[in-house]
Each structure stands twice: as structure tokens, then as C-alpha cells.
């Protein structure tokens, strides 16, 4: 008989509204100062926020910091280092922020910092306000979870795989945690940690999740 968790996994959907913080940066040093001080919502929005609609995640830097470093500062090296960060590497936004600061500090220590952005090309810090609400379905077993994954929207997948883990805190709406703690299947949770989020479409991501959940232990 299939294992049933005592607590069901509730699928959520999300809606976002972007708030401008009023803070901007024209140089790498100013960007660094901003990153150190803005909210976690802002860090998340500018790094992995774009993974929600998955556009060109495989071809384009999804990090706003990385893109700005190229487009406004023409500093490819720091941009590439900022771009190659993966959501599952970080347990929290705080850890993500520290890594970003470390990359920029290393670059600034190298000397010869990039010239400031030209007029009109400042980086504007924004933050994302997330509205979470039940999507109307839940899962108690692995089979029900797979069904839920099949019907989940882009937003629902993004929330449970990335946003919940980094923004809400571990083990709240986090798929990996429910698999480990709720269903007693830590091996499946570990598989989710190896997902590649930088794939061209939501269907690619969904297929990866289903494959991870369907493979033999």
C-alpha cells in the first residue's frame, strides 16, 4: 500500500507585484552597497525571480545583476561569475546575498574597476511582493504529488521548487522537505536538489521533476 503523509502537501499559486525601492546604483561599488542593504525580496527578485516564466533561462543571464554588469558596465567577467549561481546551492536568500557580495568584493579587490554606467543606465533596485494562495489541490501520497506536478502552472512549480525554499524558509511549502519529512523519502528529495532550473521551458522542468519522482529508489 502506498505511503500517505499525515500532513498533505498543499499546492500554492502566486501572484507578484513589483515595488520600486527608490535605490539605484551607477557603479559596481554602488551595486555592492545596494546589495548589502536591500531586502531579501529584492535580492531574490533580481536573481532567481526571472526563473518563474523561464524565458530564455538557458540562453540568457537570468540574474539582473549579471545582465547589468554586461550591458551597463561591460564587465563580462563579474557578470559571468554572478550568472553561474544555482538556486539549490543556497539554503536561504541570506546565503545567496553573501555569495554575490563575495563575487563583487573579489572583483573590486582585483583593481581596475569597470567605469560607471553611462547616464540613463543606472541599476534600479526593485523588490517583489508575493501573494500566495492555495491552488485548490493537494497531495497525500507520491502518486497524488505526481498528479499535482502534472497540473501545476509555471507559478506553482516555481513557488514550490525555488521560492518557498529560499524566501519562506526551509520546510514550509518546500517540496524537498515534504518528501523527506512528510513522506519519509529523503532519497527523492535529494534528487530534486539536482534539478537543473536553467532549461528552456516549464515542460522541461516539469519532466525533470516527474522523472526524479518516478525513478526507482
Amino acid at each position, binding site marked *: 500500500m502506498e505511503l500517505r503523509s499525515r500532513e498533505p502537501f498543499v499546492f500554492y499559486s502566486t*501572484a507578484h*507585484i513589483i515595488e520600486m525601492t*527608490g535605490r539605484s546604483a551607477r557603479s559596481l561599488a554602488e551595486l555592492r552597497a545596494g546589495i548589502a542593504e536591500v531586502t531579501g525580496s529584492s535580492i531574490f527578485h533580481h536573481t532567481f525571480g526571472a526563473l518563474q516564466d523561464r524565458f530564455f533561462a538557458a540562453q540568457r543571464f537570468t540574474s539582473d545583476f549579471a545582465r547589468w554588469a554586461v550591458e551597463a558596465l561591460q564587465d563580462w567577467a563579474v557578470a559571468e561569475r554572478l550568472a553561474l549561481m544555482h538556486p539549490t546551492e543556497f539554503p536561504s536568500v541570506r546565503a545567496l546575498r553573501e555569495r554575490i557580495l563575495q563575487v563583487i568584493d573579489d572583483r573590486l579587490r582585483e583593481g581596475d574597476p569597470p567605469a560607471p554606467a553611462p547616464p540613463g543606465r543606472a541599476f534600479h533596485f*526593485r523588490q517583489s511582493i508575493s*501573494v500566495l*494562495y*492555495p491552488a485548490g489541490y493537494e497531495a497525500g501520497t507520491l502518486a497524488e504529488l505526481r498528479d499535482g506536478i502534472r497540473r501545476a502552472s509555471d507559478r506553482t512549480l516555481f513557488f514550490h521548487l525555488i521560492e518557498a525554499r529560499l524566501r519562506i524558509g526551509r520546510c514550509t511549502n518546500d517540496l524537498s522537505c515534504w518528501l523527506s519529512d512528510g513522506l519519509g523519502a529523503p532519497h527523492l528529495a535529494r534528487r530534486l536538489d539536482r534539478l537543473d532550473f536553467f532549461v528552456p521551458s516549464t515542460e522541461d522542468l516539469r519532466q525533470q521533476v516527474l522523472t526524479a519522482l518516478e525513478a526507482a529508489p
Partner: protein
Amino acid sequence: MNTPPLALDDYRPIIGAAAVAEIRELADLIKGRRLLMVNSTAVGGGVAELLNRLVPLLKDLGISTRWEVIRGNEEFFAVTKAIHNALHGAPVSLTAAMRSLFLEVAARNAASLDVDANLVVIHDPQPLPLVAARTPGRGQWVWRCHVDVSHPRSEVWEFLREHVLRYDASVFSAPEFAQSLPIPQYLIHPAIDPLAEKNREMTATEVEAVLTDLGIRDDRPIVTQVSRFDRLKDPLGVIRAYQLIRRTVECQLVLAGGGAADDPEGAAVLEEVRRAADGDPSIHILELPPFSDREINALQRASAVVVQKSIREGFGLTVTEALWKRRPVVASAVGGIPLQVLHNLTGLLVHSVEGAAFRIRTLLRDPAFARRLGENGHEYVKTRFLTTSNLRRWLALAHALQHPGERIIRLP
């Protein structure tokens, strides 16, 4: 005029059943709140077009929504036109009499309109001072600024700013269009309606018939710019770009814009455009009457390349329209265009006449690349810049305003 769609379900074939269901769930959680939208015109202009879609959809979702239009005389609208120009940086001053009239008309409207609602959204500067009529402690007031106020005449902005500060929040179309304000500032991109006459699907036969009516009868690839005849849209630059490639690339150019009859500057630009075209029969200069949505739709759909070679631009909804129609776009990297045209992914960004010529040629020579950009552009607009995305953002904002200071709002 188009008949607005009656229901969100009309969009189901476009955005999918899951997305429609999600919007309904989100709306159900604010049922019972009363919304009021206020602007200065019921027809014509982007804001009226937006509200003509948004208001029926909010009602369809079961949210009590009213739309009021302020009244004013010719003198008042001359003042608001001056304010509009000053917000775009034109050297315009507001006399004491102009300021008084602006405030008086607002006060008269405030007295005659019912502004009691849970959420009052005031669009653009014309009805801005209505906020003076708000009852303390009742309802939340949001100023939705559709105008780029990043480089205004400072005395005019300072005059308006006093009123803006009485709002609970503001909404801008792009971060680059905003001013520093001590109230929360949210971002909602403009959007197009895929079901509107200007954007609906058309058959090849219908497109062909419109082209014939417009006098475009040969089948060489069409390069099009749809824009009013305005120097900031650089129609002369588009002609020069076309002239740079016409010897080696077989194509024809269409410049289609609104009538310039009541706009002295537009008429002068149109004359310059005609002179620059120099009688070339492959350059079609089309002066379209208002509400030529069907013609614009057909022209965009018939184009091998759509160009937007603006020198300055707002959000650039003509670009959004072209992307939605799967057209490869060559556009200047100004205003809101780079938010839509991701270089080499959803279109090609340019910075000069020569750049425009080079990229138009690239797309005419490489139809497979052009098709890929067009498909990407369509998908990108579908997620971000349709009426339904706009609706979702307004619903999210309504929730956010009920939870001030919270960045993660968990609804039951």
C-alpha cells in the same frame, strides 16, 4: 469601436484554463471590496483603451468596479495638455490662473462624483487633485501614472507632487519613468488586448484585402513602421535605413501613422517624410484615420519586419503589438522597448540608422532567424504584456495594499 469581451473565459484559448482559474482564485479572495477607476476620457487614448478592458474583466470576476470620467471644459484640458508637455520636459510654465483652474475643476468633479470605494485608482495627472476629497480612514488611494515623469519641468512636477504625496501608493509603467517619492511605488507594465480589433487573429485573405485597399499590391517583403508622424519616431531615419539597403535587398517600406490634419507639427513632419521618399513607389506613406485598428493589424501581420526607430519612446505598445503577431522587430533601445525586445531573443535592438538598416537586412536575408525571434516575442508578450497579465498584477496590488509592509502575503 470594439465590443469589450464579457468574460475572462474569452481569454482561455490564449492563456490556458489553468491561468484563468488562477486569476479567478486570486479575485475570489478580494470579493466584497469596491474598486473605483477615474480618468479623463472614456474613448480615445491608451488609458481609456486599457480601462475599457480592465473594468469589464474585474466585474466579470465579481469585483464591484466603477469607472468615472472627470468633466472639464476646453480651457481645463488646455491646462492639462500643458502639464502633460511639461512632464515630458517641454519649457512650459503654469500661471496662477492655470493652477487655480486645474484645482477648481478637480474640486467640482470631486463634489459631483461618488469617490467612496475601498480602492480608488486615479489615472494620470488630470484627476490627480481629486485626492483632496478623500475621507480620512476610508479607502486607499493609488495614483496610476502612465506618463514618463523622469525629466519634467521641475516647477510643474513640484506642483503636482504635493498632491501625489496624499496618495497611499503610486504605480508607474517602468522604473525609468518614475520620480523619487516617499510613498510606495509599484510597477505595472502597460498591456495589449489580444482580442481587440488591433490584435485579433486575421485570415490571410482578410489581410490581403486590407493591403489591396491600402494600395499595396505587390508581393515584395514589407518593412513597416506604425507610428504617428512625429520627429521622435524618426520616420526620416526609417526611410534612410530603407534607402541604405534597397539596392541589394528587394523590399518595400510602409510608414503608417495617424492623421496629421489637426496637428501642425505632424503635418510638417509628414511633408518632410514625403520629400524624403522622393516619389519612390516602393515607399508607401499611409495617413490612417482614427480607429484604423483593422488596417494596422493587417499591416503588422503582413510585414516581414516591423521597425520602431524611435528617438524617444514611452513603453512602445506598437512594439508589443508586433511581437504578439509573431513579427520580427527591429527597434531602438529607448524607453520601454528594451523591456520587450531582448536583443537576439525576441527582436533586434539598434542605436542608429545604419544599425536599423543592417538588422532589417539580416532579418530579410534569414527568414528562419526572423521566425524564431517572432515566436519568442509572441510567447514573451503572452506572459508579460497582455490584458490578463495586467489584471493579475492589479489583483496582486489590491492584496498588497491590504497588507502594507509585508513582502510575502499568505492568503487563506
